[in-house]
Structures are given as structure tokens and as C-alpha cells.
């Protein structure tokens, strides 16, 4: 039997991976394994074939190419020349990529959290174990909970959801919180446009999240866990639910995790199409069965979170990084990165980019290297004009500022935001006045309505940008510009959460770097 690995990841499926898998299934001598995706999304459906010399890949496979794929796989097996090797594959043949582990796009990455993505069968806990799974949990369960917390502190791991709060410090607070009932909640409400790493991890390596949650529970003394996944992610929901069931059966979850005495179980909760639920207090309200309105802090969720109990709220990637930290030691993790941004960041290259996908590298890589080196510039072939980093609430970085290093402090110092590591590329056809308007429109549609600057301010923002762009007399435009800047300040300072507080960031960056798109002169004055 020859093993073919076909991604079951939603992105791969969106361009035909299921059809390729169906065409392969039932071919004589063929075994099909559905994996996650390696993250080379521009090559999907990317099919790998197991050979004696390791796995080799074929790009953009269509169902009609399955016959040619089988012939090429046989050539690889017998070490014969491959019809589709070289820059121009023969007609009807998929492009041959060779071993993906040796592909320059992969060898330049530091895959710690995403090492198993696209490699293992996400339904098989033994496959997970063969690739380094469950080692961190076993080691953690042999340690005192406080020691586990301190290892995470020492690793320098910071929350990957966007705020970048040190994970170990948060855990310490929860561990010291009152009462016997504590929760571990995972924020998988990945609603930012340009981000998909949480989804890919849950679909491709769900046991890593489960293992990380169990370690977290041991460290802070929690007994119940929730993974809150947005409803737009049906594949991730199904994969996580199946993996949780499997983990229960295997003793990795349940009343006595791996015989350690730890009682911990996990449940998936599904969102219902509200972006704001990615805000932690909104997410907690939603799990509780209430409107997803933001709560004022304090009290912080670490002390009074879900149902008023001490609660860990961490992003998928934060907790999925924990097993390798426990397995390999905090020093190994902290050896990656720069300054106070330790470890790796899972970047997501998206939008108008030639080679989009998932790039896990040390903090400190420049935006230019990511967009041009990994991404290969725009998909359209036109010049890059702007890159939005950090989701809909992140700044638009102009093409002449791409040398900024991607780390929490360096980005903040430059007036930008790293966020969840989403990188959305725009070519020179983008109208930044429209994008600024969209930022306000999005906020108006998705605001939870709790606080006035966000609820009303965003609507007034749409209207003010419309008037500004429409023109009028110079004094009209001066007045509208002043009003828009005032409105941004009010939203920044007066909003309860990051939604209203950061919506001005894309707007202001568009005004600062692309004033001509608002009918303003280069110094931001009406002209």
C-alpha cells in the first residue's frame, strides 16, 4: 500500500481537497490519510506521498490529475525521473515539490507550536504520541503545579490572542484565586480577518490544544475546560469534539488524567456569529448563556471570570505552545525571539499575497521579509501599497515602513500592533479611504453596544469619513477632519474594550500614511 496524505483542513477543502481524496480513495494499492495542512496554502490541495526516502509533495492537485499523480508517485518510488518535476510540469501532471521538510519555505521556519501540522492524522492520538505528543503532560503531572507555572513564566510565553500578557503570570493569579472551582477557557473565536492559525491548529493538531489545557488545569488547579469556537469554523468544531471524545477514552481527559489524580474534562462551546465574543469578557458572558456584552474590568477574569470563578482565558496558540515548553524546557522556548517577545509567532500571510499561508518564525522577523521573502509579494503582481497587521483593529503599514521588526514592543513603538499575527497584503489598487470607512462600518455592525463611544462613535465615524471623502469647501473638510480625529480620540480613551478602543488605529494609520485617499495633502491638510 502507498500512503497518500491529503489535507482535510478547511482551506484545502475550499479548493477541492475532498474531491482529490475521493478520487484517490479506492485506487488499487492506495491508502488515503487525511491530515491537517502544512500551511503552504497557495499550493493546496497539496498531496504528499510516503516513500522510502520520506514524504514528497505534489502541488495544486485536481481530481483529474489523480492518474498522473499515481504514475508520478510510482516514479518517485522506483527513483525514476518524474514527469512533473521542474518548473513546468507536463500537461495533466501536478507540480512535484520534493520533500516538504527540505522546501525553502519550510526550512526557514521555526515550527515549535505547528510542528505536527499537516504531518499527523489529527484523529489519531498515537500518531500524536509518535510525534512528541503527551510528553509535556506526563512531565508536568510529575511536577508540583507551582513549578509548572514557573516554567511557563520562565519561558516568556505571552498571550497570542493579541494583548500579549505573560501567560505564566496570569496562571499564577488564577492558581492563587479563591475557591475550589476554577476554569480553563480557550478563546478560539478567531474572528479577525487575516487570521486562521487557531483554526488550522484545531483542525490539524487538536491533541496539542487538549494536552496544553490539561497542563494548564494541573498548573492552576482547574477541573473544567471550555473551548469556545466560532460557528464559522464547522471543521474545527467537529475535529475538536472528536479529539476530546478520543482523549477521554484514552485517559488524557477525565476523572483521573493518566493516573495522576487530576480530574479535568473539556467541552466545546460554539459561538453564534458575533465578532465581539473574541473579547474575553464577552466570551465568558456568552458561555454563561448571556448576551455577549463586554464587562468592565476589574474584576479580572483570572480572579472572577466564568460564573464568577477564577478563570484562565488563553488563546489557542498560547496553550498549544505549552506542551513543547514542558517537554523541552522553558530555556529552549525562550532561546527563540527578541527582547521581551520570546519564542515564536505563528504568522498568517493573507489577502493579496502570492504565497499565502502559515509561517511560524522567531519574533523579530521584519514585515518585509514576511511579505516579500515568504509571501513573494502580491498575488496580482502589482506593487504592495499597504499591509494591515493584527486584524481589523490593526494599523495599515505603508510599503515604505515594511522594515519594522515584528515583535510586541517594536510594533507598538512604531505605532502599529502585532495582534494575533495576521498579515493582510493590499496592492496599489486599494482605496484607503474605503478601508478606513470599512473599519468604522465593521465596528458599527459588530459592537456589542455596551459603551457609547464604540456603539455610536463608529456610526458617526462612517458618516464623517463619507463627508470628508465627498469633499466640499476647505473649511468643511477641515471641520470634518478635526471631527474625525476627535471622534477617534474619544473612542480610544472612552471605550470599555479593544473593539472601540482600537478601531481608530486602522483609521488613523490610513489618514497618516495615505492622506491622498481622503482628498488631503501629504501633510494631512485639506487641499
Amino acid at each position, binding site marked *: 500500500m502507498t500512503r497518500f496524505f491529503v489535507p482535510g483542513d*478547511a*482551506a484545502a477543502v*475550499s*479548493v477541492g481537497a475532498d474531491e482529490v481524496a475521493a478520487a484517490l480513495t479506492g485506487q488499487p494499492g492506495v491508502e488515503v490519510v487525511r491530515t491537517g495542512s502544512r500551511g503552504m*496554502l*497557495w499550493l*493546496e490541495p497539496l498531496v504528499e506521498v510516503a516513500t522510502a526516502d520520506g514524504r514528497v509533495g505534489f502541488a495544486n492537485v485536481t481530481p483529474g490529475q489523480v492518474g498522473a499523480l499515481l504514475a508520478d508517485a510510482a516514479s518517485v518510488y522506483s527513483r525514476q525521473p518524474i514527469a512533473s518535476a521542474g518548473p513546468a510540469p507536463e500537461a495533466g501532471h501536478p507540480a512535484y515539490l520534493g520533500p516538504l521538510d527540505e522546501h525553502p519555505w519550510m526550512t526557514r521556519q521555526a515550527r515549535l507550536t505547528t510542528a505536527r501540522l499537516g504531518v499527523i492524522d489529527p484523529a489519531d492520538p498515537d500518531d500524536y504520541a509518535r510525534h512528541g505528543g503527551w510528553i509535556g503532560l506526563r512531565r508536568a503531572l510529575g511536577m508540583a503545579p507551582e513549578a509548572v507555572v514557573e516554567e511557563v513564566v520562565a519561558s516568556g510565553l505571552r498571550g497570542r490572542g493579541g494583548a500579549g500578557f505573560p501567560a505564566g503570570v496570569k496562571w499564577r493569579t488564577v492558581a492563587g484565586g479563591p475557591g475550589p472551582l476554577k476554569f480553563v477557557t480557550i478563546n478560539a473565536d*478567531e*474572528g*479577525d*480577518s*487575516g*487570521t*486562521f492559525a487557531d*483554526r488550522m491548529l484545531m483542525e490539524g493538531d487538536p491533541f496539542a490544544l487538549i494536552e496544553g489545557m490539561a497542563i494548564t488545569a494541573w498548573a492552576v488547579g482547574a477541573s*473544567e475546560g471550555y473551548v469556545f469556537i466560532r*460557528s*464559522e*469554523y*464547522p471543521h474545527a468544531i467537529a475535529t475538536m469534539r472528536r479529539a476530546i471524545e478520543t482523549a477521554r477514552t484514552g485517559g488524557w481527559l477525565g476523572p483521573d488524567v493518566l493516573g495522576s489524580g487530576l480530574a479535568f474534562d473539556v467541552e466545546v*462551546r*460554539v*459561538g*453564534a*456569529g*458575533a*465578532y465581539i465574543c473574541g473579547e474575553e469578557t464577552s466570551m465568558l458572558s*456568552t*458561555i*454563561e*448563556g*448571556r*448576551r*455577549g*456584552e463586554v464587562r468592565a474590568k476589574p474584576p479580572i477574569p483570572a480572579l472572577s471570570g466564568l*460564573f464568577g470563578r477564577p478563570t484562565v482565558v488563553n488563546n489557542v496558540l498560547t496553550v498549544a505552545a505549552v506542551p513543547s515548553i514542558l517537554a523541552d524546557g522553558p530555556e529552549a522556548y525562550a532561546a527563540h525571539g527578541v527582547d521581551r517577545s520570546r519564542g515564536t509567532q505563528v504568522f*498568517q*500571510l*493573507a*489577502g*493579496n*499575497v502570492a504565497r*499565502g*499561508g502559515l509561517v511560524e518564525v522567531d519574533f523579530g522577523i521584519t514585515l518585509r521579509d514576511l511579505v516579500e521573502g515568504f509571501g513573494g509579494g502580491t*498575488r*496580482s503582481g502589482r506593487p504592495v501599497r499597504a499591509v*494591515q497587521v493584527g486584524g*481589523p483593529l490593526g494599523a495599515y503599514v505603508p510599503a515604505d515602513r515594511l522594515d519594522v521588526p515584528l515583535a510586541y514592543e517594536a510594533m507598538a513603538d512604531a505605532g502599529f500592533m502585532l495582534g494575533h499575527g*495576521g498579515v*493582510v*497584503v*493590499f*496592492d496599489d489598487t*486599494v482605496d484607503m479611504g474605503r*478601508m478606513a470607512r*470599512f473599519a468604522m462600518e*465593521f465596528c458599527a*455592525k*459588530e459592537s*456589542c453596544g455596551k459603551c457609547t463611544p464604540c456603539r455610536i462613535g463608529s456610526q458617526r465615524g462612517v458618516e464623517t469619513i463619507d463627508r470628508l471623502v465627498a469633499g466640499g469647501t476647505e473649511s468643511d473638510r477641515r471641520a470634518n477632519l478635526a471631527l474625525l480625529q476627535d471622534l477617534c480620540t474619544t473612542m480610544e480613551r472612552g471605550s470599555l474594550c479593544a473593539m472601540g478602543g482600537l478601531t481608530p488605529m486602522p483609521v488613523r494609520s490610513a489618514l497618516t500614511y495615505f492622506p491622498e485617499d481622503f482628498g488631503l495633502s501629504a501633510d494631512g491638510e485639506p487641499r
Partner: protein
Amino acid sequence: MVEMTRADAVREIAAGYAAQRGPLLPVLHAVQDRFGAIERGDLVAVADVLNLSIADVHGVMTFFHDFRAAPPPTHVVAICRGEACQSVGAERLMADVRADLQEASDVEVHEVFCLGNCALGPSGTVDGRLFGHLTASRVGASLPGRSS
């Protein structure tokens, strides 16, 4: 056998989740999965079983975009308008799809903000199935009985 009324069925669904912590969202999802919508009578039944006020249940239901008071038409098309999809022509796609389907009473077209397929945009779903590199003609071809 007495046939179960809708209210009875909703009560049974709600009762199945009542022992969970924070059961309301899972219950609303389950009711909508079963009936395609959450109608006024469903709210009353859910509120009664979970010992909540009708206003509370109504407030939660109307907060979230996914929940609907009336069932959808036969086909639902969702086009992503997130920034990443806009960078590769989502607004144009949305306009084209709306123009193509404006006469189609059995198709609902709505916007969605991000389907997590941001490297392969424009993205959208047709009857729940996710498509990357979506075009208006692909939307048409994916709707049974239409070839436009």
C-alpha cells in the same frame, strides 16, 4: 401514539441541556438546527424549561447574528467581506453575486466577516460549503438548477 408538538420537542431539547453550566446558547443552536429558526413559541418553551425570563432568552437570541426568527430560503450564500477578502475583490464579488441572484426568491445572499480562509480569498459559502478563490459563476454553478 400522540404526535409531539413543536413546543414539546423544544422543551425536550432544552431539558437535555438543562444540567449543563450555561445551557442557553447550546439550546438555541440545537433548536435552530432542528427547525431552521427560533420562533416566538420556542423562546417561551426554552425560557420555561431553563427558568429564565422570555425577555432574557429573546435578548440573547437577538444579540447573535446566527440566530434567526424565520427559516432561511432553500439556499444561502454567504460572501466574506473581511479585509483579506476585500484585498482580492470581495466587494466586486458581492455586487456581482447580488446582481446575479436578485430575482431568485429561493436564495438568500448575506455578508460574513471572515471564514478563516484568508490566504485563498475571496471566500464564501454556498449552502454551508466553503469555497476559496470564489467567483460569481462558481456561486451560480454551485446552486442546483442554476447555470448562470
